[in-house]
């Protein structure tokens, strides 16, 4: 993955959060951890926008916060221009933070209501001791605001956040992030709180700034279509792992991981003529405290085989530039959803065990039946859907 002009190179990055229980439970249960980020590898090169998508709780925000060192990693390497930033402290950490900035999700909460726009944007300059005098800082703030298309800057400089619209606030947040001329920016869901008509403007602004400054961006979003628009490459995260990483058009057109396929099939399309079918996924997101063994996606995967529950697949280059964490990534186009699920269970009608490999009928809910028992009842006994 490594190439010339790599800004960030992340290897086996891990972040666990301890689960806080009461005193009593700490006596008889071992300490538990939320596996927020569980061994993530990727590179970000100069001028690139890397999109991160996934369901909530999959660890995309934690990854972003680790890269800006708002969190300290449990283990793993994060090389920023060759230096490992995971263990930086004190003076060096402050220097690093000057080079890396973050744009937060909610512009209504990320701006201090008692700070003027000038105070907000000048704050990072003050913290890092940039600019000799007030006048010089005022110039820098004005320039940052103009870059964020808040023109004329003088008019906005001494306003308070409540006098600004949502889009203008997010522009202030962008100006604040760019005031220090950072070398890397993490944007955590920067447009999800904004109205549709304003959203496109903010996205175009970020793209323009990337072109102007050549700063690499990490764009975190749960919205695949927005991420596609913004990024060069997309990383799909699931339960703390990157399950697929590829150029954005590539990933949209030929997903190589079953989770990506399911995620894409769930995205609604603004075209009333295409109504898509059901998502090819079952069950809910497992708890990140007890991550399933083997491939973490296997309990929900429709294509799973015996190998999937035993061996955790590595993130490998399944096609040139297209990385996927699946044992059978190359076969995805030819695969059919497996009729025989891996686990066995009890039939809902007769209560007897359905043995592995034995024919069975499965409902989406998911309950299983013997074919004979299923023919007796007309629909699923639990969810009442027709077979």
């Amino acid at each position, binding site marked *: 993955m490594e190439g010339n002009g790599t800004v960030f190179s992340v290897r086996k990055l891990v972040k666990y959060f301890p689960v806080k229980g009461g005193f009593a439970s700490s006596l008889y249960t071992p300490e538990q951890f939320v596996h927020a980020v569980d061994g993530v590898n990727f590179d970000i090169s100069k001028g690139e926008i890397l999109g991160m998508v996934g*369901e*909530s709780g999959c660890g995309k925000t934690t990854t972003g916060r680790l890269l800006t060192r708002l969190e300290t990693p449990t283990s793993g390497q994060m090389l920023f221009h060759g230096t490992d930033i995971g263990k930086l402290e004190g003076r060096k950490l402050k220097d690093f933070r000057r080079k890396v900035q973050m744009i937060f999700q909610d512009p209504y909460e990320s701006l201090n209501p008692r700070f003027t726009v000038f105070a907000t944007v000048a704050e990072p300059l003050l913290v890092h001791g940039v600019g000799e005098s007030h006048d010089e800082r005022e110039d820098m703030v004005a320039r940052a605001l103009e870059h964020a298309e808040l023109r004329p800057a003088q008019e906005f400089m001494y306003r308070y956040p409540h006098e600004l*619209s949502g*889009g*203008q606030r997010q522009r202030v947040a962008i100006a604040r992030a760019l005031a220090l001329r950072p070398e890397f920016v993490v944007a955590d869901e920067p447009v999800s709180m904004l*109205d*549709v*008509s*304003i*959203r*496109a*403007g*903010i*996205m*175009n602004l970020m793209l323009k700034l990337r072109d102007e400054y050549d700063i690499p961006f990490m764009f975190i979003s*749960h*919205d*695949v*279509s*927005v991420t*596609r*628009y913004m990024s060069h490459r997309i990383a799909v995260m699931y339960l703390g792992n990157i399950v697929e990483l590829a150029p954005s*058009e590539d990933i*949209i057109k030929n997903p190589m991981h079953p989770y990506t396929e*399911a*995620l*894409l*099939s*769930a*995205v*609604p*399309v*603004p*075209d*009333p*003529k*295409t*109504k*898509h079918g*059901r*998502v090819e*996924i079952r069950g*809910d997101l497992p708890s990140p405290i007890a991550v399933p063994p083997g491939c973490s996606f296997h309990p929900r995967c429709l294509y799973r085989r015996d190998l999937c529950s035993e061996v955790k697949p590595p993130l490998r280059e399944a096609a040139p530039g297209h990385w996927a964490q699946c044992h059978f990534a190359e076969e995805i186009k030819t695969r059919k959803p497996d009729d025989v699920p891996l686990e066995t269970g009890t039939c809902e009608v007769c209560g007897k065990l359905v043995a592995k490999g034995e024919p069975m009928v499965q409902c989406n*809910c998911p309950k299983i039946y013997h074919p004979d028992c299923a023919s007796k009842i007309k629909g699923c006994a*639990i*969810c*009442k*859907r027709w077979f």
Partner: protein
Amino acid sequence: MEMLEVRDLKVYFDILKGTVKAVDGVSFNLGAGQTMGLVGESGCGKTTTAFAVTSLLPTNGRIVGGEIYFDGKLVGRGDVADEVATVLKSEKWFEETKAIVARVNHEHENHKAQPPESSELITLIEDEEPILQTLNDILSKPENQAESEELKKKLEKAVGKLTKGGSGMRHKKRRQRLIDRQARTIRWWQVSMIFQSAMNAFNPVYRVGKQITEALMVHKDRFRLYHCENCNEDVKEGKEVNTPNGAICARCKSPLVHRTLTKREARKKTLALFDLVGIDRSRVDGFPHEFSGGMRQRSMIAMALACGPKLLIADEPTTALDVIMQDRVLAEIRDLQKTLGIAMIIITHDISVVAEVSEKIGIMYAGKLFEWGNIIDIFDKPANPYTLGLMNAFPSIKGHKQRLKSIPGSPPDLKNPPPGCSFHPRCPFVQDKCRAERPPTVLVAPDHWSYCHFAGEVYAGKLREAT
């Protein structure tokens, strides 16, 4: 006949700094079993429209004009005298007053020719008669045929008498009560609502099942349930035999007495609802915090479906959910539509969600319906610059990657909206006419309306540059 008819609805909110015109002239109708999407930016009046239909408006909000009919019942309406009083403050008071009086006259004639079923509506019409009489008298006089200050004063005086003072207020309140009583007969029974953010719509200290049971028990008198006095036992739901003379007992053939829903039956219904929306029955006694976002949203749907409504209003049903959960909830909604044949209004800011589930779409901006009609035609050939702008601002995962265009500026302040077309400050095709005059609502194609001076040209794809 259309099931829901909203005619020229106006809802204003009184706040300290003036009046917010949240909904300002919205008309649409919806047939039984149809699904309509209401799309717009935040603050454009989508939710207010829904609240007006269910008459759940907050205390400072009032319907100042227009009316809402559900199944021929008047369930929301502005007070005629109030409406005239509001109109008199505007610039074009003469035409608008005349229009209101003409409309109400027409309505009353209709009702006289074909007496409505509900006694409330009849009383309401009788109550309005003297107001209308006064206004008609003033407007029909030969010296009052043209616009004049004197006429305005006369009207103001007459209307003031009808709305202010002891007797005026008393009558006004009485009229409002009549409408409220009508609205209560349909709320949750025939029209129910899925509220925005299901996360907070449930009471955290009650079990979810209990809350749904409660919704059923409020309407316990209204289920078709019977008791047989002869056999001295309750007849189970649906086990009675219906005859033209009323229901009779299947066993002893004696006439049945109406009874209320028992708690046990309500509980049973709740369990069936959980099955319907695909949540395991065992979760019925869970608390809201034990449910995931998707499950809470589904239990909200279960609660809305409890009384078997004819119309379901879903306010941002999927906004707080992940893509996969969103897709499941949408699939659920589609399934229910198919099996139960419920009409739906889906309120959202996401055009693609609407494209997924509805057959009609209404695009709202600044309290007005800018475009309305068949979804396929509107997506194919939008006839309104605002719709065009919205479509260009939406990224998609299908097709080629296109550069998005944002709509410049931000939505107007609804306290004092811009004159003329309220979109004109942001419209790329703005002409002088747009700045001065309110556009008409034009029918550009069958089942496709647009609120624009140049709707026809936009529809045909001939757009002129802004002047």
